[in-house]
Structure formats: structure tokens, C-alpha cells
């Protein structure tokens, strides 16, 4: 892994036990993200997009879960090899590899506690369900600021007043109409679009070097979607934050992403620059063409 990559994933394998037996939901996925870059992940429902990114985030608690591969995360010049010790937690049982999930979780927590929030964080698909329903929006933004400050020396930390002011600033940065009012609102008092803005504020207030955005616009109406996409674009640039952007929507993808990977059935079909996807649609993988066709985008440039 070079100094220039932030996240590097190699041959990631994720399996789950179901009543019908072991299923492999992510099968040898590889990709990498450089600082400040936006990598898009495109693919149909169930293709393993969420699972791949949650593996990087260290959030998969299922059993057996992540079973192989490498994930390297670069945080301020230090490289963390997240899956390096994974094989020592896997043993053979009745011909099937089994993982000691408890020990693995403990081990993973020891690594991830330094990285969560600071190096990597996430926003989720359903903005209403990803905000705590019993806390005001302002409190939630402030909590991420607190979590961020708790990594610093006691002398350098912001005091309570400054944290509150910063939380208000964040609400203004995500273009909330009335930040002072929203600060004291509960999520159920806000619209879906406002909730997603709040969630973006909460996530970016951690000052991560990479943000995972898992379908942040699904379930919002068209005008609000466009606003959220523009907002993300601007904030990511301003904060010099890289982003892993997952979506079904090719148009959003072309607008935001620098590079795109196309996934299906847990495999990466191809990796292209957004430009190539736009300009040379007919040279793409068969399945990518199907996706482009479905969005009515094929032929516009190639004919």
C-alpha cells in the first residue's frame, strides 16, 4: 500500500450462515481510495455494497461475517492493517471454517477505537433511523464534537460553550434554514431531507478523513436529493474529506464520483473513471451497459 491511499481493500470475503447453509455475500472485492477522492460503488440491491463498506467500518457483527482479505486504513501517516490477524481467529470445524466471533470483536474494537470518527465514519440510508429519536439534533452534533475532542490533550480541548457554538456552525454549514431552532428540535419534528442534513453535520463534525455514505438520498424526493448531493459535494471539498459513495442512481454517481466500481453478486465487475463511464458507455461491461440503459443514458455520446 502506498502512502497515497487512504483505504485499501484486497480480496475481501464476507460469508453468512443461513438456514440454507453458508452463503458468500462478498466474494473477493478489491478497491482503494486516495485522500480527497470520491469512489462510487454502483450495483443492484443485494450485491454486497453495504456489507463491503461495513466491513471497513468494523460494524459487521454477524456470524461468521468477515472471513478473509485485507483492509488497510491510513490515518495520519500510520497504516492500520485491520484484517492482518483475522486468520488466527478462524479454525476448521466440520470441514467449514469457523470464526471465534467474541475474541475477534474484542480484537477489532482495540484497533477501531482509535479510528472510529477520526479516520472513518458513516452516514446511513434512512436518515430518520440513523438519528437518535430521543435526543435533540443539536445535542447529537455536539456529541460528535465531544467524541472528537476527547482524543485530544485536556489542554487543547474546546470548552462546552465553544462546542455548542461549533454545533450551531455545523447546522448552518449543512444549510439548515433556522439552525437555532433546529438545534433544539427532535428528529421526528424534522423532514426527511432535514434529518439527512443533520446526519451529515453529525458525521462531518467528527472530522473524518473518509466518509462512507450508504445511499444517503434513497427515500428522499427528487429536488431534495439534488440538494443533498450538491451539499455533500461542497462539504467534502471544503473539508478535504474522501468519500465512499454508494448509490443505485447513475446520474448522482456521475455527478459526484471520480471513480466508480460496479458490483454484482458480491464481485467487482469493473472499475472505471466517471469520465469513461460517461464518454465511452459502449465499451463498458455488459452489466454496466444494462444499468446505463436503465437510466436512459446509453447512446447519448457514442452514436
Amino acid at each position: 500500500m502506498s502512502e497515497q491511499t487512504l483505504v485499501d481493500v484486497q480480496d475481501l470475503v464476507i460469508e453468512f450462515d443461513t438456514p440454507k447453509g453458508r452463503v458468500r455475500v462478498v466474494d473477493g472485492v478489491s478497491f482503494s481510495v486516495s485522500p480527497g477522492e470520491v469512489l462510487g460503488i454502483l450495483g443492484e440491491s443485494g450485491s454486497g455494497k453495504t456489507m463491503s463498506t461495513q466491513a471497513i467500518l468494523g460494524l459487521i457483527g454477524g456470524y461468521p461475517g468477515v472471513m478473509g482479505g485485507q483492509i488497510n486504513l491510513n490515518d495520519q501517516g500510520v497504516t492500520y492493517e485491520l484484517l492482518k490477524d483475522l486468520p488466527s481467529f478462524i479454525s476448521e470445524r466440520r470441514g467449514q471454517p469457523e470464526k471465534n466471533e467474541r475474541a475477534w470483536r474484542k480484537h477489532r474494537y482495540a484497533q477501531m477505537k482509535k479510528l472510529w470518527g477520526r479516520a472513518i465514519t458513516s452516514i446511513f440510508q434512512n436518515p430518520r433511523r440513523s438519528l437518535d429519536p430521543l435526543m435533540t439534533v443539536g445535542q447529537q452534533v455536539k456529541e460528535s464534537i465531544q467524541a472528537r475532542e476527547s482524543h485530544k490533550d485536556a489542554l487543547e480541548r474546546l470548552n462546552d460553550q465553544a462546542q455548542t457554538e461549533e454545533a450551531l456552525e455545523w447546522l448552518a454549514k449543512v444549510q439548515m434554514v433556522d439552525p437555532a431552532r433546529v438545534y433544539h428540535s427532535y428528529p421526528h419534528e424534522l423532514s426527511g431531507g432535514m434529518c439527512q442534513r443533520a446526519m451529515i453535520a453529525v458525521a462531518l463534525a467528527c472530522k473524518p478523513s473518509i466518509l462512507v455514505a450508504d445511499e444517503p438520498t434513497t427515500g428522499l424526493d427528487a429536488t431534495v436529493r439534488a440538494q443533498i448531493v450538491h451539499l455533500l459535494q461542497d462539504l467534502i471539498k471544503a473539508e478535504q474529506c474522501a468519500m465512499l459513495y454508494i448509490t443505485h442512481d447513475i446520474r448522482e454517481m456521475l455527478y459526484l464520483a471520480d471513480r466508480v466500481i460496479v458490483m454484482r453478486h458480491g464481485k467487482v465487475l469493473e472499475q472505471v473513471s466517471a469520465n469513461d463511464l460517461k464518454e465511452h458507455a459502449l465499451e463498458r461491461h455488459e452489466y454496466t451497459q444494462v444499468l446505463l440503459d436503465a437510466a436512459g443514458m446509453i447512446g447519448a455520446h457514442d452514436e
Partner: protein
Amino acid sequence: MTGQSTGQSTRQSTWYSTWYSTWHSAWKEQPLSFKLSSIIVVLVLCFGVINPFISYDPVLDVELSRRDLAPSWEYWMGTDGQGRSVALRLFKGIEAFFFPGLIAGLFAAFVGGVLGALCGYFGGWIGRSLSAVLELIDTLPRMVFLVLICTIFPPSILLISIISSVLFIPSIATIIRRKVEALGAEDYILAHVAHGFHPLKIISYHILWLQCRALLTRQMIFVFSYVLFIETALSYLGDYGVQEPYPSWGNMVAQSRISAVAWPWALPALAIIITIAALLAFGDGIARREEEVKR
């Protein structure tokens, strides 16, 4: 003007202000039964707290010349078979269950909440064996167990309340464990983890305090009313509870069986029924309101 608006925006929402707003919105929207029950609960609370400050000598209060009087300005609820003021004895009778019930409720809610959260969050063999022990305790019939304890040890209301709170810990822990397990899959708890919050903060603040406080309050109230029930039952039966001449709602009912008129009997019995019903309705109202806020 500007100073005022920043003052507004920097206002902290503290635990009592969120508690107050929960209660206040519950007050506005709840049915009449909730309003009535909360008035009664507040009254019982106030009476219970001021009880130790008001001295009462049950022996000096005996005055056979004024026995079985009807309610009047001097004796609001009349007098009993020994000429003692029923109103005053009802009031002092609260002391018999109030602090034991409060202690039992707080203890059961605290220990049950912590155990349940630990079992739910960490799972594994510790969680499983703890759940097994708790389920074992849960199968004991509570009343039988209490009477058994009373025959082995010198009975006191403190002992009774501690035993009954221990008997409630398993069911509270199980409720909390289920809740915590369900919450572990919620997006916002995952988001808290991803944002780098400390796991202890997530368990104690986001899960136990924010999500389970209504459930725990309700269980606490339930334990409190159970102690009330046990105390009055034991005092009524006579051998283990509060002994004459000291008043308890239970022994007041028992005493007035030998009274010549009806109301001294009816009043403590009504007090018992109304208080227990009000406590349970109040707990339900608070819990229901919090469920609605979440949706």
C-alpha cells in the same frame, strides 16, 4: 436582542428539562385517567416525604369517649373503634410502605437495568449464564418465598422490601436485555459506534438512560406498588407486618372489622385500591408516551 437569542440557543437541555418536557406533553395529551392517577401519585409522594416530620403518638391518640364518630370538621374521616382520627392514621400509615417501597423500586430498577444491559450488550457465555440464574430466580413464586423468608428470619419491612426487590430484578433484567439486544441492530446505535463514542457512554447514556428510562420507571413503580401490596397484606394478617398500635393501611382494615360502623373499614381499603391503581396507570401512561415519541 442578539444576546437573548444566543442565550436561547446555548441553553442546555438537562436531564430534568427533558424529563419535564416528557411529562408535560404526556399531561396535555393523556386521557383523564392519567391526569387523575398522576395527581394521586404526586399526593402520595408529598405525603410520604413529609411523613417523618409529623410526629404521631398512637397511644396518646386513644380516647374511648369519642369512638366511632362520623366525619366532621375536627375528624375529617371520623374516628375508629378506639377514638383515633382515621385521617391522621391513614396519613401516618403511608410511612409503613413509602420508604421501603421507594428503596426496593430504585434498587430493583438500578440492578435490573445494569444486569440486563450487560447481558444484552456483551452476550456470550457471561450473558447466557447470568440469564440462566436470573430465570431460575424468576420461577420462584414471590409470595410463598416472602412468607418463607419471614418465618426463617425476624420479619421486618426492610427485609421484606429488599427480598421483593431482589425477586423483581430478574424480570426487569430480562425486559432490559431484550430491549438492548433489539437496539444493538438499530442504525443510530451503529452510527454512535461509527462516530467513535465510548461504548460505556453508549450503554449507560444512549441505551439505558435515553431508551430504557421509561421502562425502568414503570418497573420501579410496579415494584413500589408490590411492596405496598405485600406490606398491607402482611399487616392485615397480623403476624409479620406493622403491629398495633402503629398504623398501617393493612392493620387498619383488620382493626375496623371489629368496629361498629362501616366507614373506618371502607377508607383504608379504598386508599389501598386507589393508590395501587393510580400507580400502575401512571407508570403505563409515562411508558406509552415515550413509545409514541419514538415513532
